[in-house]
């Protein structure tokens, strides 16, 4: 992608990513338009779902708030000042990644979009969708082990290979990396704490083990990045970004642990006053 010859160059880089081409040109404009369209579909689709299902039992307001907060976080990670600065600042890049890969998926999972879709669709179509969700493909993709591998594996590839560099040079690679980041983040979150129906929900021990492994992998990668920032990233910028990844990741991970146990807490509530104690494992 020939971004160097773009007619209107954006402000010159201060060498923060020495060797990274300036981000300008048609490709990047097209990418921005696609992002706006996708986010618009997400925002409008949810509103349509609410409208179509208006005759049914009331939809909890918090789910709607979670969904739109999630859309706002994804937008902040992909468009505007943070995304713009992310091309030159590793710290800004990390803010964007936390928003798009962890916070937005968590909030959007809490918006229960599949449940809303089921309510909004006519029964025959909803049944077909439900059949699709039970298919082997979806079953594999939403298994916590697969989703966590996609999520953490993608991060390792991005930060330990040339991919980080390629991403800033090509809008297409940038788009794929960010699409993967969001989708993997969403599948991972949904597989652990999703509210939407999941016919093959993994057991509590499996989900717990996966979450612990993921937290460990995330924090190991953050500390490794502290010492080995991607090529072209200033050491101070790399350290700030790595610490942000570590502590920001922690905040979301702790929320995930709480939600995982909260689901268990609700599922095992005593039906009688003399109910036996149940262990989550």
């Amino acid at each position, binding site marked *: 992608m020939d971004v160097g010859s773009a007619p209107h160059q954006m402000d010159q880089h201060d060498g923060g990513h020495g060797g990274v081409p300036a981000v300008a040109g048609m490709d990047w404009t097209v990418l921005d338009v696609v992002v706006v369209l996708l986010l618009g579909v997400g925002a409008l689709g949810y509103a349509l779902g609410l409208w179509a299902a208006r005759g049914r039992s009331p939809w909890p307001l918090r789910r709607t708030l979670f969904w739109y907060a999630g859309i706002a976080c994804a937008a902040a990670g992909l468009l505007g000042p943070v995304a713009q600065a992310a091309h030159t600042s590793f710290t800004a890049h990390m803010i964007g990644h936390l928003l798009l890969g962890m916070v937005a998926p968590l909030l959007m999972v809490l918006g229960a979009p599949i449940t809303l879709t089921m309510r909004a669709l006519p029964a025959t179509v909803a049944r077909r969708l439900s059949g699709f969700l039970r298919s082997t493909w979806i079953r594999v993709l939403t298994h916590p082990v697969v989703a966590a591998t996609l999520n953490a594996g993608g991060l390792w590839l991005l930060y330990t290979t040339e991919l980080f560099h390629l991403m800033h040079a090509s809008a297409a690679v940038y788009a794929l990396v960010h699409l993967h980041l969001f989708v993997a983040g969403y599948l991972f979150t949904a597989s652990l704490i999703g509210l939407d129906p999941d016919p093959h929900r993994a057991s509590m021990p499996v989900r*717990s083990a996966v*979450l*612990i*492994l*993921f*937290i*460990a*992998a995330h*924090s*190991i990668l953050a*500390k*490794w990045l*502290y*010492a080995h920032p991607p090529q072209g990233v200033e050491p101070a910028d790399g*350290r700030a970004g790595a*610490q942000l990844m*570590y502590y920001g990741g*922690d905040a979301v*991970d*702790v929320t995930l*642990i*709480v939600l995982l*146990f*909260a689901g*268990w*807490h609700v599922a*095992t*509530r*005593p039906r009688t006053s003399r*109910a*036996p*104690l*149940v*262990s*989550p494992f």
Partner: protein
Amino acid sequence: MSRHSKVRIDRPVLLSGVLFGSGIAASMIDLFIFHLALQWHHFYDLSTTEAALTADGFFHAFGWFITIWGLFLLADLRRRTAVPWKRWSGAVITGVGFFQLLDGVVSHKVLGIHQIRYGVDLLLYDAVWIGSALALLLVGLLMLRRTRPRDAAV
């Protein structure tokens, strides 16, 4: 409470307390006191081997996980029965002492993930750390002994 139910709830009481105590020692005492307040610990001292870095990542993940697990076990106990708070507190102190001992011996000395403080003679710091951990562990175990359910064979 019947003799039977006392015995039955004792294990989750101990488990909840020890998990929560070890968890706060791992995730909160270390983070809030040594990293943020005193700033004796560094985020990463760059001398760590990869094996130690991996061990540190798992310590970290387990720390948060068992803190929250311990609290949800406590919440589950509370909605089912009266919690024996003294015994639970004894289990928490035992957990803190146990984790601090583990941290002081295994992660500081054996694995060398990080030290208590940098640029000082460590002997005194290590002695105080390990000594206080042993003291906490002892206090916790004594509390557990004194609050033992009469008929329980713990």
